[in-house]
């Protein structure tokens, strides 16, 4: 064959070669992480790649409520205290000790002296004061933190390592609140920035890892904080974390996450649903699970909507739902149907199973009684209006859609039409704030029953537009009671009122289930069923 010396052909060849080479060169990037060698003994080093299902759109721990994002941003900050996951007791972290006044209005924390932030600044009482003073200004995304500090009178610097927080009313939940990520301590410089800046640019914390890069909806990269030596008393390793780098990738599809864990592309995944359990078990994968304390998964009703103002309608909705079926079909093995507004692992939970039975006949009777007559298309009407609920939901867990579709079927069977509307995860807070919903699907994790006050007291945000009632008094009292027995009694009263009045429709308890590759060790749950990665090692 004659040499193709033609200028045009060789021009093409060169062009092709150039294109191919440039594609290949730019495509070559770093691969996954390397893991340590040896078995049994913790080894330092390595990168953990963790696939999560969603991105809350914010990397400020004080403004994040979504579990999938908390897994990563929690590692950036430390809290004043920590909570033992097994017993619920509060243990030291940044504060080596504390004093609580007998009436629970004054909390004095004695800080460690050796804590520094990743920008070099030291932790002092002034820094803590700056943090707490800035909380009320956090805006729409900071409702959790704001709730914890509601009623605060002042935060004072007693001496450089002692800070005193004083409330106008007794505040029984505050100590537990200081162990949460929402009151994680950030550097003074970070605290001075606007909430939006903190969300998009990140914050400086004293935590075992430092934020290196945040690409919204795609990835969060953290690197080990060198010189870290003030870990929680709960943790087993002293000093720095084992891992060099943490990479959290956002992969919304549960099936893709599971497949990627099986194939080794990632080392750990969140939100393993029932569908993927069988495939993951027995491979090079362990499933770790823990029930989340707090308000269970359910329909947060807008009690001010015309159709929902009627208690019987709300009760009918509660009766029509077959909770066990939903738990068994959609959720990870071991998930329990809700037996109260609180999850079983929450302190002062009480079982109201008899009030939460599934009874379609009862539901129909209640609806008939309240004047909603069955229409020809299977949907009830009254005064010309259809009994139709628009449920807004957010894809921050892969179990949400199938669970809601089952609820849709179950409610249709008694004549209630459910329209499902999916919104982005970043719209969770704005939706609640605007009150523009019939019902919202969600849950709130907190290892303290005061979460009921944050969620349902008409004196606070009152997202669910409850009418003012004796419930408010009970909620305020339980927050102020130091006597454990009395508190328990009040919390029981609150749960009964919420369930019997059906202000909230409890469905299932959230069970966090993670899939972790066998070579990854010690991914430990904290008391709120989030993870601490300081003790985690690969080998």
């Amino acid at each position, binding site marked *: 064959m004659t040499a193709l010396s033609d200028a045009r052909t060789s021009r093409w060849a060169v062009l092709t070669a150039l*294109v191919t080479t440039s594609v290949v060169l730019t495509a070559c990037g770093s691969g996954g992480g390397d893991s340590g060698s040896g078995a049994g003994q913790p080894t330092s080093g390595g990168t953990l790649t963790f696939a999560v299902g969603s991105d809350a759109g914010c990397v400020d721990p004080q403004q994040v409520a979504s579990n999938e994002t908390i897994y990563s941003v929690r590692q950036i900050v430390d809290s004043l205290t920590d909570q033992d996951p097994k017993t619920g007791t509060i243990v030291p972290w940044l504060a080596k000790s504390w004093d609580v006044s007998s009436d629970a209005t004054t909390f004095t924390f004695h800080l460690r002296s050796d804590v520094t932030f990743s920008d070099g600044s030291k932790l002092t009482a002034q820094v803590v004061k700056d943090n707490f003073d800035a909380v009320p200004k956090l805006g729409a995304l900071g409702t959790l933190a704001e709730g914890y500090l509601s009623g605060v009178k002042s935060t004072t610097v007693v001496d450089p390592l002692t800070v005193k927080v004083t409330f106008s009313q007794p505040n029984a939940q505050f100590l537990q609140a200081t162990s949460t990520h929402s009151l994680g301590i950030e550097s003074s410089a970070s605290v001075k920035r606007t909430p939006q800046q903190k969300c998009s640019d990140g914050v400086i914390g004293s935590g075992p890892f430092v934020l290196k890069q945040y690409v919204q909806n795609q990835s969060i990269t953290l690197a080990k904080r060198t010189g870290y030596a003030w870990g929680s008393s709960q943790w087993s390793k002293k000093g720095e974390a084992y891992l060099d780098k943490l990479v959290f990738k956002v992969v919304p599809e549960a099936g893709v996450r599971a497949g990627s864990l099986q194939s080794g592309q990632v080392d750990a995944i969140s939100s393993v649903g029932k569908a993927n359990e069988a495939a993951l078990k027995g491979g090079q994968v362990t499933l770790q699970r823990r029930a989340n304390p707090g308000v269970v998964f359910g329909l947060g009703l807008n009690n001010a909507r015309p159709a929902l103002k009627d208690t019987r309608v709300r009760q009918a909705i509660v009766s029509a739902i077959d909770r066990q079926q939903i738990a068994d079909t959609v959720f990870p093995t071991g998930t329990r149907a809700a037996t109260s507004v609180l999850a079983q692992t929450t302190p002062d939970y009480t079982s109201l199973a008899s009030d939460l039975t599934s009874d379609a006949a009862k539901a129909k009777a209640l609806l008939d009684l309240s004047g909603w007559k069955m229409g020809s298309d299977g949907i009830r009407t009254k005064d010309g209006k259809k009994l139709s609920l628009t449920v807004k939901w957010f894809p921050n867990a892969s179990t949400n859609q199938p669970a809601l579709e089952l609820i849709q079927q179950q409610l249709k069977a008694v004549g209630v039409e459910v329209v499902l509307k999916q919104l982005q995860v970043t719209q969770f807070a704005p939706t609640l704030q605007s009150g523009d919903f019939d019902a919202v699907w969600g849950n709130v994790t907190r290892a303290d029953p005061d979460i009921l006050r944050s969620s349902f007291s008409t004196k606070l945000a009152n997202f669910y537009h409850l009418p003012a009632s004796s419930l408010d008094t009970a909620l305020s009292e339980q927050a102020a009671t130091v006597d454990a027995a009395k508190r328990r009694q009040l919390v029981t009263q609150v749960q009964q009122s919420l369930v019997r009045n059906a202000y909230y429709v409890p469905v299932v308890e959230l069970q966090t289930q993670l899939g972790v590759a066998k070579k990854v060790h010690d991914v430990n749950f904290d008391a709120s069923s989030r993870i601490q990665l300081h003790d985690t090692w690969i080998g």
Partner: protein
Amino acid sequence: MRRYVIKRLGQAVGVLWAAYTVSFLVLDYLPGDPVTAMASAGMDSGQVDPQQIAALRHEYGFDKPVLVQYAEYLGRAVRGDFGDSVSTGRPVTSALADALPQTLQLTGAALLLAVVLGGALAVLATYTAQRWLRQLLLSLPPLGVSVPTFWVGLLLVETFSFRLHWFPAFGNDGFKGLVLPALTLAVPTGAQIAQVLAKSLLTALDQAYVETARAKGAGRWRVHLRHALRNAALPALTVVGLLVGQLIAGSVVVETVFSRDGLGRVTAAAVTAQDIPLVQGVVVFGALIFVMTNLVIDLVYPLFDPRLVVASGRKAALA
């Protein structure tokens, strides 16, 4: 030649301006109240704060008559300012610029694969004397244009990632992570290239110069590649220009399926968030790529086929 270049450049600018106008009409004029759409961003508009709406209206200039708005927006767009994304707050142009390299990588690889695979298929199908092989090969392109891209991608992930563990299922890491997405994106485009090239090869092979070459003793392969292909390639080249737009648009689906960073995923998120400035930026950007690619091809074309009467442009070349 100079006149040709200037004329084509002028046409390109004209098309871009018109594309901008179309996107303005669709996104700013059509929804009736884009401000409420942006402010409520996915929620029902009934409960948005009227003060917030009025402020947004003023900020975006919606309280002015349409033509004035259009002129202002156009003025800014010409200077490269498409406003700020409603969902992230960053300027649209920087959001697009950040996402672009990944998508260019993907579409570049896909284009390469499409040209190579589609071309090879067409050459082989027209070369072979075996009727069954030719039938088989020629039946592949219609299949290629009939299958949904996202389905192909998912099947590839299922087989090559989950079952065989050969390639990663998602992400932008490395060369291996590019293979499945590029292959998925290349299927419909490659099929179309194969169809066009096969057709023009068959036509070329009927021409007189081929008979002449054979009569002079040239071997079959040489005739096929050196004579027929070189001439048949020109219409295929034009087709490539048109298909670039299809590739860029296809990145929306492929990047979603493979959870890759890039323009496609940015677009999908923008549509979900009803982020009008960002979607507008994407639309104009897509037109820009299309216009630029075809401009380059049109300018390069006469260099390859001097027979072309330049003023008649592309239509004559296809005849």
